[in-house]
């Protein structure tokens, strides 16, 4: 394992310190907890958004704490859902009296830990609502699974629900728009190389020099299958096909696109992917309202990427294009 770290056990703590030192105008620490909240939290008269999950997905989620997105982010151990007490502290720190929306990615651990935190907060008479993001089409949504995973599409939930909260909307309204995003966002990823959890010290899997993992999750979990590496165009088309087959996108629809890097894939390659994605959408007459390309939901130093597509209506579009000002997502 070759990493720029001190002790593996300290990496989350030291990262959080580094984040707060870098961005004091945006965020502050809830002392004693692995929780980062807006510098001016709690914001009175606004529904607050809290997200989080295991660490290792940076800039998710701490990088999205700021005006127009999250109010708080909870950092678990690397790839491990944070514990309920941590989430509970975040909720307490950001509640401005209008309630708190928890944005949860659909993993058994996250769902259980956030649920327990919600119970704790409700016992304090804090209004809490929850949404569970499950955008990954790689995983079949059949009755025998725990449902789809939540991956990079989560960033659209943060952005849009965050913008809605900024308008002064109620908790129910913010939750409703978050659910609308979840209903309309689909993602799928692939990996070229594994990543190494610092405390584990070695990669969680290996791939041959010509092999890639299709349907890769964001925690080093194996994907749906392995195959020989194909061209960027073929790979992009394959992932996009799966996404387009899952949800009804038709000519004239407007979408937002996110080409998300998993960590080690150069922006150059992400743009090569975007070229093909835009071409295919163009052929189908699907309008692209906005494209994001970059590392938004990573998996440590994994090489690979995911494509997310969000179908927009007038409300989603307006909220997506609204300003945001956070360490990792700034938009005029």
């Amino acid at each position, binding site marked *: 394992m070759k990493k720029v770290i001190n002790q593996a056990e300290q990496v989350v703590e030291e990262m959080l310190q580094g984040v707060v030192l870098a961005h004091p105008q945006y965020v502050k620490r809830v002392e004693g907890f692995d929780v980062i909240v807006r510098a001016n939290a709690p914001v009175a008269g606004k529904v607050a958004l809290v997200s989080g999950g295991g660490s290792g997905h940076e800039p998710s989620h701490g990088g999205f704490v700021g005006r127009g997105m999250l109010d708080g982010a909870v950092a678990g151990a690397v790839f*491990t859902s944070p514990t309920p007490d941590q989430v509970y502290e975040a909720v307490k720190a950001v509640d401005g009296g209008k309630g708190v929306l928890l944005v949860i990615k659909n993993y058994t651990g996250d769902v259980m830990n956030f649920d327990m935190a919600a119970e704790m907060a409700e016992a304090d008479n804090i209004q809490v609502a929850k949404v569970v993001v499950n955008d990954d089409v790689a995983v079949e949504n059949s009755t025998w699974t725990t449902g789809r995973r939540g991956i990079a599409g989560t960033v659209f939930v943060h952005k849009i629900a965050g913008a809605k909260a900024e308008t002064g909307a109620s908790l129910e309204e913010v939750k409703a728009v978050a659910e609308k995003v979840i209903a309309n966002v689909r993602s799928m990823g692939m990996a070229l190389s594994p990543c190494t959890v610092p405390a584990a010290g070695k990669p969680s899997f290996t791939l041959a020099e010509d092999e890639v993992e299709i349907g890769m999750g964001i925690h080093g979990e194996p994907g749906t299958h392995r195959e020989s590496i194909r061209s960027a165009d073929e790979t992009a088309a394959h992932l996009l096909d799966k996404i387009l087959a899952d949800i009804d996108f038709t000519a004239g629809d407007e979408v937002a696109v996110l080409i998300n890097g998993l960590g080690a894939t150069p922006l150059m390659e992400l743009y090569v992917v975007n070229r093909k994605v835009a071409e295919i959408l163009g052929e189908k007459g699907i309008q692209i309202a906005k494209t994001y390309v970059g590392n938004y939901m990573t998996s440590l130093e994994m090489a690979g990427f995911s494509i997310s597509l969000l179908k927009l209506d007038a409300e989603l579009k307006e909220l997506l294009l609204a300003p945001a000002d956070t360490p990792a997502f700034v938009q005029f």
Partner: protein
Amino acid sequence: MNNPAIALIGAVADAIVQNKEFLTSLDAAIGDADHGINLSRGAEAVRAKAAASPNADIGALLKATGMTLISTVGGASGPLYGTAFLRAAAPAQGKTALDGETVKLMLAAAIQGIKDRGKATRGEKTMLDALEPAFEAFVQGLEAQKPLVECLEEATEAARQGVEFTKTIIATKGRASYLGERSKGHQDPGATSSTIMLAAITDFCRKAP
């Protein structure tokens, strides 16, 4: 540190920490490579907590253990094992020694806690596939009036077989469920850690004076 319950907690913690890499490698195959790391973090915290507040009341000790697991382990196993210990605490409330009947109630409560929290049933490739057969074997032993240690030994053996069984099935709960068919052939990390804990308890009781 003459409290045997605390010594038992320590023995279980040791077993988890010793198997940290093994459990993590099992999780690497069908999960996210953190199960051993998560549980070891919890085990260290539980050991420290138990040592700091030696409590003769086994129920209180188990409750503290459950709370500590919930606040230090994270992931899926944290709330599950945490809930299990919290639930097991109730029948042990106020007790300083345990008999077979109490242990049976504790095991039943723990398993029900895991089911309530995780919404899984046996056969979904989770810790339940070790714990439920273990519970059944334990109850059979009790009914046959075998000594507690023997009941535990049979429970552990049943748990081991449960782990073997998890190799043959597809996961439908937890992170491994995303793998579908590819989860076959691998043993479940949580079933394995449950078995390791049971074995440690059994071992401790066997050696106990």
